[in-house]
């Protein structure tokens, strides 16, 4: 199989590579083998499954929208704005990429919790409390997933030819018009790829969610939380829920792949 694409694979590389493939694929195969295919429909129809799935889809979509609205402008600032300390800013805002999500959850709690800096003000001024609500789920997912979008969009902006923005300026377009009508359409594939990555990360979010939003069926229990809980009492249900998430992930991957191919072709 390597003959077609060029050089033969040296044995010292072949063995670990094969092991890696097996290691990554075996668990997924296990999931498929152990799935209770006969009672699948029944399991999926169980109460709670639909609610968890719906909550997951809705919250990660909302988190992606929030990330788009805030993250695309931030990516623009990181890629284009002439401001001091830009690289430091980039390092800081991408911290959630490497931060253990549970730490993110604790941090969010300290800020948006009822005793937190922002949380206490929200409570006093509007009587709004965030922790352990669906809003908290969206906030936790946004915190963890937005950096994926920012990194992706910033990369696309850096790769885009900034001279087109000069052209737009000479054609009477102010900075905002240029952004809307030239910059954004040109980096659209990068934005789409970033949004899909962001959405997938939000969908899988566990640590920050359970810490900051808790685990209440119907309001904060997303699919990953439901899987974890199901594993304690009904492993078969956990397998079914996992299958659903696996399906969604594969669909995402396909979507991304098409997107990347589309960009390569253009």
């Amino acid at each position, binding site marked *: 199989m390597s003959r077609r694409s060029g050089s033969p694979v040296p044995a010292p590389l072949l063995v670990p590579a094969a092991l890696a493939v097996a290691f990554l694929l075996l668990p997924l195969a296990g999931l498929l083998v152990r799935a209770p295919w006969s009672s699948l429909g029944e399991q999926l129809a169980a109460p709670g499954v639909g609610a968890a799935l719906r909550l997951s889809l809705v919250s990660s979509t909302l988190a992606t929208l929030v990330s788009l609205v805030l993250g695309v402008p931030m990516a623009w600032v990181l890629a284009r704005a002439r401001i001091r300390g830009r690289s430091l800013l980039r390092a800081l805002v991408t911290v959630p990429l490497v931060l253990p999500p549970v730490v993110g959850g604790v941090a969010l709690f300290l800020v948006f919790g009822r005793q937190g800096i922002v949380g206490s003000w929200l409570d006093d001024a509007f009587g709004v409390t965030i922790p352990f609500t669906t809003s908290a789920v969206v906030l936790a997912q946004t915190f963890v997933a937005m950096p994926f979008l920012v990194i992706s969009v910033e990369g696309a902006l850096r790769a885009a*030819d900034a*001279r*087109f923005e*000069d*052209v*737009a*300026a*000479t*054609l*009477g*377009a*102010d900075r905002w*018009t*240029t952004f809307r*009508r*030239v910059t954004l*359409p*040109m980096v*659209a594939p990068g934005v789409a790829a970033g949004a899909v990555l962001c959405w997938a990360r939000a969908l899988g979010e566990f640590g920050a969610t359970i810490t900051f939003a808790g685990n209440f069926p119907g309001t904060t229990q997303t699919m990953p939380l439901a899987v974890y809980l199901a594993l304690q009492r009904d492993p078969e249900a956990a397998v079914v829920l996992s299958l659903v998430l696996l399906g969604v992930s594969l669909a995402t991957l396909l979507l991304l792949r098409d997107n990347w191919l589309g960009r390569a072709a*253009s």
Partner: protein
Amino acid sequence: MSLTARVAVRRGSLALDVDIEVADGEVLAVLGPNGAGKSTLLRVLAGLLPADTGRVVVGGEVWDGEGALLPPHRRPLGMVFQDALLFPHLSVADNVAFGLRTRGAGRAAARAAAAGWLARVGLEGLGGRRPAELSGGQAQRAALARALVGDPALLLLDEPLSALDARTRLTVRAELRRHLAEFAGSTVLVTHDPVDAMALADRVVVIEEGRVVQAGTPAEISRRPRTDYVARLVGLSLLPGTGAGRSVRLDGGGEVTVAEEVAGAVFAAVRPESVALYLARPEGSPRNVWPLRLAGAVPHGTTVRCELEGAVPLVADVTAAAFAELGLVPGAQVWAAVKASEVAVYAR
């Protein structure tokens, strides 16, 4: 709509400081080697780069200077870049209509105007295509239409032909000449190709290292170059010296006999085709004869261009047959002869 500009800007090792004036309907070519500051000048005129000090006035309106700085999108100008730079996500027609839309024209009006301009530049019916589907020449024509569609006061052309292949360049240059003749505003054309400057411009300024070293009509520039760079561009050997009677003592050490009385600091200029080469010292008529050394030779059209070193550095064009007959190799000693009447001489 005339342009008056004095621009001083320092960028890295470049210190640009130039004055230019362009009348209505006039085309000024800014000619110079890479890194001379030509594109920087255009960017300042467009407002894409702020000048350190300076003043840009177009049609009596101050674009830059006196504390005012009009941002680029508020300047009524059109600019054509070397690589066309059509927006890849828009159709060709939408590219051309872009400037009208940003300046408030309605969709239908902008479409109609764009279609009209596409027809004018010979791209009728191609408006629905994507820029990637156009050839280089077509893309550059579309870029010209996009720059001119808004009827700008100032047209800036940044090396508009240099990305095109030789054959396309010829046709696009001829078309560009026609459009420039019809254009009522001022045009500044930046190029490093003397042919573009000679073919398209009413006047030429030559910039070297951020300074104007020569200004004049294309004919003046090509007849009487004032720097080695210009002389080489127009294919002349430039020999600075001091005139005394019918002779010019060169700064480099040699001496050139000329056909008229001269005095003071002068340039003597020799065309490559008026230099004849011999293996032995030629006898007879009163002409300039110098022993020189062949430094290099390259084919140049149907002739061979020979670079000669010595007291009087010259460039000579000889036919390929003559070159072969002489059996010249780099380093060979030759005699170069030029009639006194073939030497142009003018004050420095």
